């Protein structure tokens, strides 16, 4: 199916060139044939004219003497036939079927009607095709009037030579014409398709987020295509902003009811007295928290994927970004009496990246560390600049272990199914994707019971 489709969609250029070349070939052939026919006819007429002139000259030299037809064969009448070509020449002068002089067996070309001009005929004579002309001339012999037939014949060697010479010239011109026309058709196709190339380039040169309308100098024929293209771009633009809106909208739709339920559940929890009721309500709140966290991370992941495709880059300061993230999450850590120690050197760490994505990565790493750290501990956020930037979050938590059901390495493989990536581990998946999207990597150093150190490694410029 696809093969047939590919075969069918030949390039416009080659199709145009082929069609123009075909037209050129037809014109060349027509030219060749016309030239040949016209030239052959002209050459034939030339020979006929010379033959007629020769026969007429001979006829003019006829006279009668002593009751007989006599002839002073003019030298030029015959020699003129030898001037153009080396054709064999035959002549015959006959009266009433009797040969007066010349080749007695040379057939007389029958005139189409008596009294008409020279009669021409082509026949074989002495092993070769000859063109013959007969001129009738009445000669008065005494009281009689004798119709004398003067026939001059010539082989067609010269004619053939002229014909083959003209054929050669016509062939050369036709071939030349064809070649020039084909070359021109290449050029024409090239120049006709140049606006298309320009359009292609102007679209191809664009960045991934350049969804402006295409504005190039286009010929009339391409205006509909341009219009369609721009409409498509507009639709794409709408669709992209809609998908961004959709993520936002989805988040809103999920989070607001959850917030309501959670708030009400908390209020209810306070009012309840019986421990079993309270326990049930606590579990409900935990479930809400878990699902909202999952939803949040799924939406974050969608956002990361969406933004990773668009490759937005801006100059930012990684140290500043880490500091912001620490401050942002300090209240959360505070709730568990966890101190976030910032080990961030003075001075900027300039980096070109997507602020939102990097923030998301750092946020997820730190949030994870807070979540898995016991109360009354400390988390160290450090930044190091060297061959690469190293933003690390080290905690005193349990660390990651093979027995841990939240083994992060398992979640790092992209092929993992969705069921597997739901949960807090997705946070590290997001961080990993962001790191790789920026040409870096996520490093996890962990020893059971010793805490973990998760580092975002990014290439220094």
């Amino acid at each position, binding site marked *: 199916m696809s093969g047939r489709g590919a075969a069918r969609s030949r390039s416009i250029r080659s199709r145009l060139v082929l069609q123009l070349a075909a037209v050129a070939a037809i014109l060349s052939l027509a030219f060749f044939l016309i030239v040949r026919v016209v030239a052959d006819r002209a050459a034939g007429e030339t020979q006929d004219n010379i033959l007629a002139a020769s026969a007429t000259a001979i006829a003019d030299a006829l006279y009668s003497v002593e009751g007989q037809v006599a002839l002073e064969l003019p030298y030029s009448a015959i020699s003129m036939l030898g001037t153009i070509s080396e054709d064999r020449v035959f002549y015959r002068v006959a009266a009433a079927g009797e040969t007066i002089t010349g080749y007695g067996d040379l057939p007389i070309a029958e005139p189409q009607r008596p009294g008409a001009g020279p009669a021409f005929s082509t026949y074989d004579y002495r092993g070769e095709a000859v063109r013959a002309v007969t001129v009738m001339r009445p000669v008065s012999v005494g009281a009689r009037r004798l119709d004398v037939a003067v026939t001059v014949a010539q082989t067609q060697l010269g004619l053939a030579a002229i014909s083959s010479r003209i054929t050669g010239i016509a062939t050369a011109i036709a071939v030349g014409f064809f070649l020039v026309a084909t070359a021109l058709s290449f050029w024409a196709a090239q120049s006709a398709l140049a606006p298309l190339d320009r359009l292609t380039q102007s679209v191809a040169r664009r960045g991934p987020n350049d969804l402006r309308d295409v504005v190039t100098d286009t010929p009339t024929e391409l205006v509909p295509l341009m219009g369609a293209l721009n409409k498509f771009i507009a639709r794409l633009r709408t669709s992209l902003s809609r998908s961004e809106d959709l993520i936002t909208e989805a988040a809103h739709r999920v989070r607001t009811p*959850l917030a*309501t*339920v959670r*708030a009400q559940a*908390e209020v209810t929890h306070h009012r309840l007295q019986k421990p079993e009721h309270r326990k049930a309500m606590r579990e409900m709140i*935990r479930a809400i928290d878990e699902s909202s966290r999952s939803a*949040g991370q799924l939406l974050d992941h969608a956002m990361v994927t969406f933004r990773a495709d668009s490759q937005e880059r801006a100059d930012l300061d990684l140290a500043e970004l880490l500091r912001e993230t620490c401050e*942002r999450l300090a*209240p959360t850590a505070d709730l568990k009496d966890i101190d976030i120690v910032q080990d961030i050197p003075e001075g900027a760490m300039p980096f070109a990246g997507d602020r939102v994505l990097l*923030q998301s990565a750092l946020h997820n790493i730190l949030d994870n560390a807070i979540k898995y750290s016991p109360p009354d501990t400390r988390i160290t956020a450090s930044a190091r600049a060297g061959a690469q930037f190293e933003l690390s979050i080290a905690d005193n938590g349990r660390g990651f272990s093979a027995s841990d059901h939240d083994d992060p390495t398992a979640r790092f493989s992209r092929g993992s199914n969705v069921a597997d990536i739901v949960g807090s581990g997705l946070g590290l998946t997001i961080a990993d994707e962001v790191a790789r999207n920026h040409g870096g990597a996520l490093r996890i150093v962990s020893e059971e019971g010793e805490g973990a150190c998760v580092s975002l490694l990014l290439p220094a410029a």
Partner: protein
Amino acid sequence: MRFLLVEDSETLARAIVDRLALDGHAVDHAGTLDAAQASISVADYDLILLDIMLPDGDGRSFLAQHRKARKRTPVIVLTARSEVSDRVGLLDLGADDYITKPFDFSELQARCRAVLRRQGGSAANQTSFGDAVLDSTAGTLTTARGTEDLRNRELRLLEVFFGAPGQIFSKTHLMDRLFSFSDDVSENAIEVYVGRIRKKLGASNVRIETVRGLGYRLASRA
């Protein structure tokens, strides 16, 4: 403290109002931006909780207007958006902090406290009992021995006791106030924190009494 909650979802708003009331906060609710404008023109609030998606406009425009008017009342945005995408815009527009729905009320309080603390304690939020003075905003306890910094959980526990001196609080109630729902802790954990604040109150004339079988209460050293 007095809050203004700008939130269009009636049910969520009621739940938030109820929940904050439990902690002893007064909350006015505005369902639209217009109502919110009306409220801040007639009353002073310690803090504004602002939703972004509102029926008569974007919360961000309210925020921009609020900052343009050079009002100092801190604003915490309640966002339903992704954790990250809105952050930059919101903070640039002048939000003091934001919290993503759904939220843990203890976290909300922690953020409120952090925001107020950053403001520089203009509204000194002090409570005293006996010779002990608790500054919630600064997170300090002042006794005859001097002023001491408090850990977050110590502060919150003291807030509970200073909020109602003499009242007996059950361990269950104290746990609700101290631990988040995700923390799986036994009731005995509360004893650790009670022990810590008793130590800090050691130099004052107030103490935490154990009322056997019922819980704890704040009382003067007789």
